[in-house]
């Protein structure tokens, strides 16, 4: 089991910025491309330290993805930076043909993912990006949960050869994972062991799941909290191991109910160990303007929603057991 302690509050995008700056020092092959969002992506420190390895491409994301593929051909390790919306939906065909199908070593780094982008509204709040990216053969999809994990993931993906989608966010959120952790791509992390229900959470929802765990404990329910930071390749063995113990699952993500972590886990469950599952996710709607806090409540992505989903799935498990 992994240890965690609430130590600070920071945005995950700053973890990316810190990791990228470190990479700049560690690896001369790392180059960064940005589509007019250097400050938002926290890439300014890299730009300042390594101006010759930073490429401002302007508001031209399609060209940025193609250029990144070209840099990979030239032996570089390109990191692209823009909002998650413009990193995926806007450039899906460029990623598909020039990067994924061509097997290019490009790191697509996407900030302001999900509903917590806030006031800019639904045009910018992409909730389908995990789905789009995980459908691409050979694409690794990572959604870290806090500043420290995002920083560690940024370092880890540079050492991995192949296309990666790294998703992080805008708001200041709890920092609770260790500062100098080693990030292992594809390895699920258990933050709390339990026997009644498995909660698989990714991104900002991991802390919410840990809050939910305390509420459930007070109700006498033992929840296992597992951080799925890598949605693809999924740590299938960890998922199966947990549900074999608990017999039911809740998934929690700042993403559409379709295509994201929930679907990914459901796929494993139906094939290997069918048990009831409940989904904490955005329920097939677009978002809207508001503060991140208001939106998380309105769209049902709070600890209370995870608690309710856990109680419901445990009820379903009991019903199924009583029928069998």
């Amino acid at each position, binding site marked *: 089991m992994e240890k965690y302690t609430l130590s600070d509050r920071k945005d995950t995008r700053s973890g990316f910025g810190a990791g990228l700056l470190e990479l700049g020092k560690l690896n001369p092959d790392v*180059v960064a491309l940005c589509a007019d969002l250097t400050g938002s992506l926290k890439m300014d420190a890299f730009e300042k330290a390594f101006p*010759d*390895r930073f*490429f401002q*491409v*302007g508001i*031209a994301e*399609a*060209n*940025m*993805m*193609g*250029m*990144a*593929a*070209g*840099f*990979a*051909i*030239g*032996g*570089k390790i*390109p990191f692209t930076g823009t909002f998650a919306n413009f990193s995926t939906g806007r450039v899906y*065909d*460029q990623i*598909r*043909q*020039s990067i994924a*199908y*061509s*097997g*290019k070593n490009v790191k697509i780094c996407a900030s302001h993912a999900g509903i917590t982008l806030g006031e800019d509204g639904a045009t910018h709040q992409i909730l389908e990006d995990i789905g789009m990216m995980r459908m691409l053969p050979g694409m690794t999809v990572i959604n870290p949960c806090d500043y420290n994990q995002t920083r560690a993931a940024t370092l880890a993906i540079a050492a991995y050869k192949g296309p990666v989608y790294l998703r992080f966010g805008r708001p200041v959120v709890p920092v609770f994972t260790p500062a100098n952790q080693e990030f292992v791509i594809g390895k699920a992390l258990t933050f709390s062991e339990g026997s009644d229900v498995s909660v698989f959470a990714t991104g900002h929802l991991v802390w919410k799941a840990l809050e939910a765990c305390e509420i459930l404990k007070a109700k006498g329910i033992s929840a296992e909290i597992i951080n799925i930071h890598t949605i693809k390749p999924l740590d299938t063995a960890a998922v199966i191991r947990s549900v074999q113990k608990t017999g039911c699952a809740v998934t929690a993500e700042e993403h559409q109910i379709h295509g994201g972590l929930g679907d990914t886990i459901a796929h494993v469950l139906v094939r290997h160990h069918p048990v009831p599952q409940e989904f904490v996710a955005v329920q097939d709607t677009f978002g809207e303007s508001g503060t991140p806090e208001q939106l998380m409540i309105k769209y049902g992505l709070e600890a209370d929603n995870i608690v309710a989903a856990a109680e419901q799935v445990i009820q379903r498990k009991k019903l199924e057991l009583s029928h069998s």
Partner: protein
Amino acid sequence: METEKLKDIASQVRRDIIRQTHGANSGHPGGSLGCADLMTALYFGFMKHQPEKFDMEGKNQDVFFLSNGHISPLWYSVLARSGYFDSKELATFRKINSRLQGHPATHDGLPGIRVASGSLGQGLSVAVGTALSKKMNKDPQLVICLCGDGEMEEGQIWEAIMYAGSKKVDNLLAIVDVNNQQIDGSVDHVLPYGDLRPKFDSFGWVVLQMDGNVMEDILITLNKAKALNFQGQPVVILMKTEMGQGVDFMMHSHKWHGVAPNEEQTKNALAQLRETLGDY
């Protein structure tokens, strides 16, 4: 290589295009025939490259990208004939389990190809990225990218043109196949976007023009382009070609953009093209 020898090779390349598309009963002979002289000049005369020792990065070599990937039978022919792979493999074009996909791909490791193309408008951006890598690596060779004129209708192309011009990517040579044909008719009919020359010029490119079906003009213009590269501006050659060049019934029309010749048409076409290197 002598100009006459290059013309001989181009004739064989055109035979390969006809035989591949006929063999696959699909593919794009028109644009392939139109660009056959250019691609022969590039792969057998102009480019510094190592066919037998292909490596992805192409360090200290000229690196070529085909953005209009549908003219793949032409690219496969010059790659095979210049030594990247056995020309017998051309017989597998577009067939199941082949490395010679309908549109070029790296998926099965076909030597000579560095990125997939086919969905139009993407190749020039990739070329820009590789050109910048070469600059960082102090590699003195060129990055060359061939695009179609129909492809100029894609927005991404203009993003790449804007970037390369404004950021002075001067080790980049773009060539646009100006045959004024696309699937639905002439470019002037489908989307008459006007003269490319002032457009490239205003984005900061050096613009040259040539007749892409006259070998002498191709060689002179390519060398002129090379002399103009590395002087603070990317270079583009607007290359006038005839779609279907070399096969009389395929010329002066857009109809052979993506249609394969049948048995009789193939015989007719091959009768017009000298076999100079031996059919595969």
